[in-house]
């Protein structure tokens, strides 16, 4: 009996094992993160597509009055970048993986550039001045680089000052509301009401309360950052498990320790949710307040360009915003990952 059972079991076990091996070897080949990891075609095609865009720009006759030099230089730089990356990817696996991953995407981007170019400079099909070519936008960016830079710096100054003050005020009031009943009783209703009002609604009032539009704008950004940070900080503190406070108390903690070593670090994940909610709102507030009442900044630049019907400049400043705000967002995410390093693994 015994022998029989073993002889029957053995082949079954064996086949199971070989099946398992099959699955695992397939898993190694199948990359969950990267798109078309081993493609040899797309990395080449992406370059060819940008070369095609350059050829279209140079050899198809142009119907608009545009200086296409910046656009062509831009395309050459992009082609140069991709060629360099393809060469590096021959030696570097990581670079190869990300190059292949993005290749198909950039191929389509290049096609869209060709389409855009064809519909604007090459055919005059899209109405000017509302839909300029990328060539024209880049031309404006180069010509107006100084004004754009100054505008960006003005906007950034406003954002950094307003955001810092707003975060600090939000943190302090959020901690007070989360920790002390009295503060919660008196301040929380205010937060609740103020929180639902779009900050931009205050603009007309702020403009005459404050001596200059600069202070009014800072106040608006402080206000729009304050609410989500304060709300999420107090919320975060309230939701910390009681047992952490109990553990600290049995270790001899005083109130100061409980606030700074338990309540605030424990609320940090929630605080960061508040901070990046605030980031998005603050971009909107910044641009709107600049459009309405400022004499500098990217929002002002948009408004100014619009009044001259120079839509290429409007697009130029939108592109600058996309780049600058993405950088700000990336910095905030970087800081969050650093501060919440203890949460890694919990998040995923």
């Amino acid at each position, binding site marked *: 009996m015994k022998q029989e059972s073993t002889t029957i079991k053995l082949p079954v076990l064996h086949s199971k094992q070989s099946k398992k091996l099959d699955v695992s070897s397939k898993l190694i080949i199948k990359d969950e993160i990267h798109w078309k990891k081993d493609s040899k075609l797309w990395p080449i095609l992406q370059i060819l597509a940008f070369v095609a865009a350059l050829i279209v720009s140079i050899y198809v006759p142009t119907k608009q009055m545009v200086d296409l030099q910046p656009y062509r230089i831009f395309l050459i730089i992009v082609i140069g970048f991709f060629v360099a990356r393809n060469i590096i990817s021959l030696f570097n696996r990581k670079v190869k993986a990300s190059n292949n991953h993005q290749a198909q995407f950039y191929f389509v981007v290049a096609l869209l550039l060709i389409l855009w170019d064809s519909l604007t400079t090459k055919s005059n099909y899209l109405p000017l001045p509302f839909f300029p070519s990328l060539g024209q936008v880049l031309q404006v960016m180069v010509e107006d680089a100084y004004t754009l830079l100054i505008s960006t710096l003005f906007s950034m100054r406003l954002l950094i000052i307003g955001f810092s003050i707003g975060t600090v005020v939000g943190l302090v009031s959020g901690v007070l509301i989360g920790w002390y009943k009295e503060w919660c009783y008196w301040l929380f209703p205010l937060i609740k009401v103020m929180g639902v009002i779009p900050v931009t609604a205050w603009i007309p009032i702020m403009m005459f309360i404050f001596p200059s539009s600069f202070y009014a704008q800072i106040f608006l950004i402080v206000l729009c950052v304050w609410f989500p940070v304060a709300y999420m900080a107090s919320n975060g503190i309230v939701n910390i498990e009681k*047992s*952490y406070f*109990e*553990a*600290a*108390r*049995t*270790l*001899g*903690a*005083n109130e100061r*320790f409980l606030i700074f*070593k*338990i309540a605030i*670090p*424990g609320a*940090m994940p929630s605080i960061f949710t508040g901070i990046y909610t605030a980031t998005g709102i603050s971009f909107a507030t910044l641009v709107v307040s600049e459009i309405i009442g400022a004499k500098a900044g990217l929002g002002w630049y948009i408004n100014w360009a619009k009044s001259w019907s120079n839509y290429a400049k409007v697009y130029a400043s939108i592109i600058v915003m996309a780049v600058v705000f993405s950088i700000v967002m990336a910095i905030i995410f970087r800081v969050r990952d650093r501060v919440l*390093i*203890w*949460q*890694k*693994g*919990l998040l995923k």
Partner: protein
Amino acid sequence: MTVENIRKLGSISISGINRTYIDANGSETEALQNVNIDVQPGEFITLIGPSGCGKTTLLRLIAGLDKAQSGEISLDNVLVSGTHYERGYVFQHANLFPWENVENNIAAGLKARKIYKEKKQDVAHFIELAGLTGFEKSYPHQLSGGMAQRASLARALINDPKVLLLDEPLGALDSFTRIDLQDKLLELWTERGTTTVLVTHDVDEVVYLSDRIVIMTPRPGKIESIINVNLKRPRARNSDEFIAMRTNILERLHLVSSKVQPDYYL
């Protein structure tokens, strides 16, 4: 301080404790009814009983995490009111601060008492004691259950408490880790002579560790009996005396039925 010195400290006197919980509907639950215990300095005493017997409530009262309606608890003739680092507490689920690494978790008591600078070298000692050398910079979520509980124990011990209160610290661990940690606990207790009050519902653990066993019954939570364990340490879990004591406790907890049918006949 020598062991002899420490042993003179850490006597707990619990007298006439009543603790009633009133929920939102106004209905009352008597968690503890007229509880009296005197714990000798350096004693290892265990509270055991089914859930709802108030053993954790009693431990929390000693820690100062809860207040009784009537009765007094004192440590070395000083009335307990509120928490104090002299009464260290180890929670069921390690309860390490997730935002601090192992080193800072263990050092938390020193920092809370603002003596970190003077006693910085203690931290390394307690990390070693907990067998966590090499894991100083790890965060709690990276530790296994046993490691986390050892860190938690070290965190409580770094304050050199007069009394160590253990709230089912090994309850959530697998049996290998549990037995391992029971030995560790015993070793630390023997070395340091700290009065220890352990709450558990593991009968083996109770017999293996305790000097005295307090058996509690629920609704209302009160003391059923107190048993002295006069077995020599180290105790063999398979010795006749051990098994007899174990059976005795199981009987008192009404966990042994006389009607048990054997699983098989020979």
